[in-house]
């Protein structure tokens, strides 16, 4: 066992990288659930975004085109969910599960010719002077644009939900869709936009896995982090900053346990591998002990009867 092989600075830096896909997917799902829709298809939209982003980045040679394509791909898949749940009024749980299964299969089909291909590298930003600082530099100022975008997105979602009329209407729709309809708000339209936003965020998160974190294409490479993102939203009590905290906690322990495995710590690998899930859920359960704030219309089908 050699713990000195673990470099704390690199550990923190890679923690942020590991957390970003979950963060992006979870903040998108948070908006969807705040609008009263439960989309269990996050995993499917992530993997679809992963392959769409990967393929487009490889074909065009530009990672940015890849990320845009990934967002579009995730949103396109969520459009299927829109058709099923908002227009055909199908059950949201079943539709979401179907979306995940479909996304996993469809991405495998799309990705057949991309196995083993290397994607174009995503450039890291250099902040003049700041990036060269000894400890803070590598941790805070040596990342790619998407990572910062994720953090900015959390702040933007938080501010929009709290301070803007758009956010108020979105929360109102998720809270009581019948009352929102009676006041004349377009419940279905607002929910469709929220679902598309969630799809785009999940796609972006998926592409971050295939273009930055790993970076390569393997079938089923999102490996369940879509589900973690879903759980995170619930345990974070639908609060954006807690989603950030949960994502970083999960990313941090994932990276730490990998380092511990590499250092040969005398704990069975299985326990280390399960530790991120256990610790993240434990911490968020304790945090969410305050009054539960689940949107009251979450998962209920809206139908303007009269």
């Amino acid at each position, binding site marked *: 066992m050699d713990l000195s092989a673990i470099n704390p600075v690199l550990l923190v830096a890679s923690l942020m990288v590991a957390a970003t896909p979950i963060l992006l997917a979870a903040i998108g799902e948070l908006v969807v659930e705040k609008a009263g829709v439960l989309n269990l298809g996050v995993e499917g939209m992530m993997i679809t975004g992963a392959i769409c982003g990967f393929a487009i980045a490889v074909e065009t040679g530009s990672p940015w085109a890849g990320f845009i394509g990934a967002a579009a791909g995730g949103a396109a898949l969520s459009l299927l969910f829109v058709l099923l749940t908002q227009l055909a009024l199908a059950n949201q749980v079943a539709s979401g599960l179907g979306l995940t299964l479909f996304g996993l299969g469809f991405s495998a089909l799309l990705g057949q010719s991309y196995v083993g291909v290397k994607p174009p590298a995503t450039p890291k930003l250099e902040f003049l002077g700041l990036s060269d600082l000894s400890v803070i530099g590598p941790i805070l100022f040596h990342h790619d644009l998407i990572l910062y975008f994720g953090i900015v997105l959390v702040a933007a979602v938080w501010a929009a939900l709290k301070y803007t*009329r758009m956010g108020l209407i979105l929360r109102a729709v998720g809270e009581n869709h019948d*009352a929102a309809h009676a006041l004349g708000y377009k419940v279905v339209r607002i929910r469709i936009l929220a679902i598309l936003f969630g799809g785009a965020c999940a796609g972006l998160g998926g592409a971050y896995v295939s273009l930055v974190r790993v970076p390569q294409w393997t079938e089923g490479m999102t490996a369940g982090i879509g589900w973690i993102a879903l759980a995170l939203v619930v345990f974070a009590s639908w609060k954006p900053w807690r989603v950030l905290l949960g994502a970083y906690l999960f990313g941090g322990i994932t990276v730490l346990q990998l380092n511990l495995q590499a250092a040969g710590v005398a704990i069975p690998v299985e326990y280390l591998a399960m530790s991120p899930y256990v610790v993240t859920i434990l911490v968020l359960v304790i945090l969410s002990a305050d009054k539960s704030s689940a949107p*009251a219309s979450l998962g209920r089908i809206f139908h303007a009867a009269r």
Partner: protein
Amino acid sequence: MTETLLSLRGLTKAYPGVVANSNVSFDIGVGEIHALLGENGAGKSTLVKMIYGLVKPDSGTMVLRGKPFAPAEPRSARADGIAMVFQHFSLFDALNVAENIALGMETPPPMRDLARRIREVSEAYGLPLDPFRTVGDLSAGERQRVEIIRCLLQDPKLLIMDEPTSVLTPQEVQILFETLRKLSSEGTAILYISHKLEEIRSLCDHATVLRLGKNVGECVPRETSASEMAELMVGSALKTPQRAGRELGEVALDISGLSAASPSAFGTALKNVHLTVRKGEVLGIGGVAGNGQDELLGVLSGEILTAPDAVRLDGAPVGQMGPTARRKLGLLTAPEERLGHSAAPDMSLTENAMLTGSVRENLERNGFLKWGAAEDFARRIIEAFDVRTPGPDNAARSLSGGNLQKFVIGREVLQKPQVLVVNQPTWGVDASAASAIRQAILDLAAGGAAVVCISQDLDELMEISDRFAALNEGRLSTPRDAAGLTVEEIGLMMGGAHGMEVAHV
């Protein structure tokens, strides 16, 4: 009448299988308080939804201040000065008062200004409100204030109120009426929907009566007696329940020193409740919704368990028994919520009959169901209580509210309870079905059963109860003989005016 504000001409709206409104015409004048009267299902709600732009008429026209008026959505109706207070509150529990009000406005000012204006307007009209409280924590009366303030902030020309007094104490009703009269004197017209005739007589200038979607007559309420209006509404003279003189037996149900927390986050805990009911007696429990009615029913039915001694049935402690064990002993309950609490909406009437009847009607053997016997039981209920349905195989959801309510009450009455507890037995039920249900309750008591009737309809309680008590914030007032109680006394028992004051501008 002065100048006409809104006139409706030949409005018709049909839904598959039912004509909600057929050729309805009337006028509302500026500053007039106009009543819209009718039974449930008479088409009142559909009509006002057309005025508010939620529903588009199939044919017919509306004219507002001389100009054609056809709102495509509530937003444009609001822009034209139409505001509406909904029957089932259109509020968002998790949001605060100011946010709720902002959602009902087109261009709300910034939160701080809005909060200041809410305070100003609410105090001017005697309806005090704290803009930053969460709506889920407010009482029913306060929630209604939120809706009214939301309308008033938009300076409406026509205010539509859909059954506004069903959740208020008599004192609160008086204050609401003062506010409405003041608004009317300032030139705001009010379209007031209700089926409470005395209220309409004291408040409204003019009334239009709807029956089965048609305008069947107009009257000036002050010059028309309540029974004449009732006849217009129902189409025939109403039978009032007959009360037989009877001897009261020994104490059947005894609750002493009962306190229980509410299982729901926005519920009310019961605090030190005492009550006794004797055989052959009907105890009426009034009070504004949300003051512990659901919890009291839960404690009696066995959904909320308490100390064994807190609830006694014929002297035996039952506080820790579940619903099935209590049913076996003869304590039956019929909760308020028809779809979901007292009946399973998607199950057939036979299955629903089995759900509460299996113990006393012997509908199962060794864990296996006796379908034949259950269907017979369902048929007996349908026959005895005149439930209008094609047969016992129909889903509970397919019945109208009144018919399902007759089924739910009938199911318990036919099981020959020792003690029957009902919550809101005639809520949302039309007048003839309501009087049939009340008669059944009275007949049951005449047969020697003890009955606890929880209701928000004071007229109903006065009609059937021997003694009356009121729930207020989880406390039960001392029961008093119902005969001779005045409305003032009842109002005080219900907690008075809850801090409301008469408009003082």
